[in-house]
């Protein structure tokens, strides 16, 4: 049990590339913090710095109040689950889990007890004598989890642990990991590029871009009030629609003058208007007149991809409880009240 403090962490690679220009983050005890962002945004680098696999060029990393910058990974009292699981191919499941404990000089029956316990939690009971290559992808993933659990560390570090699983298994394992983490109450950092995983698992969601933190917050907070165009476009699926427009006298208008709604933001002749697909509803007199291109029925909702008339802008609407339109149909859409996001054109920051 421990909180993790990262202050002013900076990472410059040998070649001079600056992966992380200086970043601070606090993770409270027992929280699951998800780092999410596109490839190359520095999320894995940050995780590996906490793990001790990458050296921090500057800054301080504290786990449970202890500065760990100069400690070996094994001395930091953490456990990591790797993307490809990194199981030792020549060792049985039992030995894979026990290896770290043996290196720590644990007693034989203590190791036995802990591994059995972890195996019971993860449903690996009958598989302890198998070799990793005799296991399915999901089972390997659980062995990797088991290897982390038996150590009873202060923190778990997950590096995209689900990306090698198929979609169905990924969903189930996601819930299992979350459940396990809550039961054990172990502080965790979880790296993923999948916004759905990020939204569903996080206590604290950290959206990263180009080595910087764009936004930190609870998942719904980030979803409801994204601080920038980047976050708005990254979190949520299908992604948020962006339209160009202006703010005049407290009214938000599209470029063609159609009125979308009211705002308290100051006048601005050029803003980016963001509206989530879920916030759009069909209405006879809706300001967004579009021509349907593709319809994707998902069961509960229908994703309608349409092109706004007279413009090149594409718009996606997630509709539910209405009859499905057909490609080629004209469709008028209106944003729900209070569901518009305004961003500054130049900086991409939120302005309302």
């Amino acid at each position, binding site marked *: 049990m421990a909180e993790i403090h990262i202050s002013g962490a900076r990472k410059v690679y040998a070649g001079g590339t600056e992966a992380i220009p200086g970043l601070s983050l606090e993770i409270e005890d027992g929280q699951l913090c998800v780092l999410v962002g596109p490839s190359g945004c520095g999320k894995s680098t940050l995780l590996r710095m906490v*793990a*001790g*696999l990458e050296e921090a060029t500057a800054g301080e990393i504290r786990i449970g109040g202890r500065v760990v910058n100069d400690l*070996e*990974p*094994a001395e930091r009292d*953490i*456990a*990591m689950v*790797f*993307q*490809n*699981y*990194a*199981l*030792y*191919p*020549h*060792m049985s499941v039992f030995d894979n889990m026990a*290896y*770290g404990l043996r*290196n*720590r000089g644990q007693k034989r029956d203590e190791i036995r007890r802990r591994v059995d316990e972890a195996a019971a939690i993860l449903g690996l009971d009958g598989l302890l004598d198998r070799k990793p290559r005799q296991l399915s992808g999901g089972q390997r993933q659980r062995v990797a989890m088991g*290897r982390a659990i038996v150590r009873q560390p202060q923190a778990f570090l997950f590096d995209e642990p689900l990306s090698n699983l198929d979609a169905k298994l990924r969903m189930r394992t996601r819930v299992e990991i979350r459940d396990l983490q809550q039961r054990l109450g172990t502080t965790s950092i979880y790296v993923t590029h999948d916004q759905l995983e990020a939204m569903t698992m996080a206590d604290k969601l950290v959206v990263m871009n180009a080595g910087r933190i764009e936004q930190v917050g609870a998942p719904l907070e980030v979803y409801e009030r994204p601080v920038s165009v980047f976050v708005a476009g990254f979190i949520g699926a299908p992604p948020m629609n962006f339209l160009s427009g202006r703010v005049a006298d407290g009214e938000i208008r599209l470029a063609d003058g159609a009125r979308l709604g009211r705002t308290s933001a100051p006048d601005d002749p050029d803003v980016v208007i963001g509206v989530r697909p879920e916030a759009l509803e069909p209405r006879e007199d809706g300001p967004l007149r579009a021509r349907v291109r593709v319809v994707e029925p998902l069961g509960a909702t229908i994703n309608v991809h349409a092109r706004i008339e007279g413009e090149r802008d594409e718009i996606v609407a997630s509709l539910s409880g209405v009859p499905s339109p057909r490609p080629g149909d004209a469709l008028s859409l209106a944003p729900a009240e209070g569901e518009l996001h305004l961003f500054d054109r130049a900086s991409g920051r939120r302005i309302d």
Partner: protein
Amino acid sequence: MVERRPIFDALQHAVLILGAAIFAFPIYLAFVASTHTGVEVSRGLPLLPGDQFAVNYATALGEGLSTSGAPPLALMLTNSMIMALSITFGKIAISLLSAFAIVYFRFPFRVLAFWTIFITLMLPVEVRILPTYEVVAGLGMLNSYAGLSIPLIASATATFLFRQFFMTVPDELVEAARMDGAGPMKFFKDILLPLSRTNLAALFVILFIYGWNQYLWPLLVTTDESYYTIVMGIQRMANVGEQQPQWHLVMATAILAMLPPVVVILTMQRLFVRGLVEVEK
């Protein structure tokens, strides 16, 4: 793939049988010759095995051909065995460690070290035989097991092979071991070595045969009969000047000299093939 037609099958088998026969026939002849008396063999080689098997092999193993100036076979076989095994284990140990250092440690002149090792591939024993002899003689290692094996131990081939294998071991495995508290040598012993098992077996076979078949080098560094190896011993037996070579005993020796490599290959065959064709990860 190739079409399956009876005529093709027949042709394939014909080619394979012919190939096998070409390889096997001289060995068969050697065996036949080793089961007859010397007189019978010198009159012209018979095609069927004779009845002198036990006598000839007992003579070869026990007394050897003292008349041709060669020590008893048992001694030469032992010498060969010691030399081949020292070379094999020495080469494997040194190349494992140097490949481990080159792949996993960042030290100054690492690349230079690798290329230096690599360049020695161009200098096989025969090319550097005179300077090597000079060094060995200067160190007083003539007529010793050390002199027979040490100069042949340094090996770029094996180092290179292990380097290539180590580079295919995923980085995550190294990192997982670090997280599990395994230091470099523990990682080497607990993870890298077991993973290299098939490569080790393949190298063992190749290097054992390499060591066993050494001819020129033992011929140069040994003048004392008690250090003769079997491969040079055969040459001694056949090359007797005025006398008629005792072909039946020479052949018996040749057959015996072939046995250890055969045993090594047979016992390690499965691992050997796997080590050459697949990488276990």
